[in-house]
């Protein structure tokens, strides 16, 4: 049985996640978007802990906050001129986009809350699963593990090759 503290902490992290995600997409300043994405990633990691996936939560912090967010910030810095004081981004199709967003949200929530009848299993995951993750990776998922390792290797080499600074400027 859940006590009130558990629920309050859950709602706190859920609020952080949702509010900062709203700020990511509605903020006009790209730097503000990137930094509120940080709070979204932390909030999602906290929700992973609530879902008793602590290993995934730590992976989320290491990979997203430590890797992807830094890459995104580098992307923002690289693709804006230094003289350009404000890093504004334009918005187009605002009203149709807002309508489609609300329609998608409405349809998904309506389906989830009224139509869907999920058959929940009797045993839930409720303790740490780090040990089982190790067993699963080395037994059931050994082929996907190797394939995804190779894919990551290829993607990183490809990214480094694509982003190489070209010393000889191409003829205009």
């Amino acid at each position, binding site marked *: 049985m859940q006590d009130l503290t558990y629920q309050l902490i859950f709602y706190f992290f859920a609020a952080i996640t949702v509010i900062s995600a709203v700020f990511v997409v509605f903020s006009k300043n790209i730097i503000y978007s990137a930094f509120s994405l940080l709070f979204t990633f932390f909030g999602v990691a906290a929700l992973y802990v609530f879902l008793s996936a602590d290993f995934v939560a730590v992976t989320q912090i290491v990979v997203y906050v430590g890797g992807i967010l830094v*890459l995104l910030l580098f992307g923002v810095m690289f*693709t804006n001129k230094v003289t350009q004081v404000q890093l504004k981004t334009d918005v187009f199709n605002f009203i149709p986009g807002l309508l489609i967003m609300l329609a998608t949200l409405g349809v998904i929530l309506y389906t989830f809350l009224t139509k869907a009848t999920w058959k929940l299993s*009797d045993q839930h995951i409720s303790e740490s699963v780090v040990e089982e993750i190790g067993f699963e990776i080395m037994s059931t998922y050994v082929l996907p593990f190797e394939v995804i390792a190779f894919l990551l290797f290829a993607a990183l080499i490809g990214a480094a090759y694509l982003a190489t600074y070209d010393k000889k400027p191409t003829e205009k």
Partner: protein
Amino acid sequence: MLPEIGLNHYLIISAILFSLGLFGVMTRKNAVVVLMGVELILNAANINLLAFGKYNGSMQGIMFSLFVIVLAAAEAAVALAIIINIYNTFKTVDLSEVDTMKE
């Protein structure tokens, strides 16, 4: 007394994150912000996978979400390399102005 935290709470959060990411992808002109929208969508998918995995009692959701995180890292690296190339070619990352394959 608040209602007990169950599957539906996580599904609602992931639906909100997904639609916000969709909104970002659809309406933003800057390519980097579009990439942030894609990351939001991937996070929403991960919350769904983990929530169903927890209430199913199996390991499949957790394993799948780990693979999703690895793919997101690869995708972000390649996409940012492409964005930097676009910037070097067109001197802008405004997606409305990038409409030719070469300069």
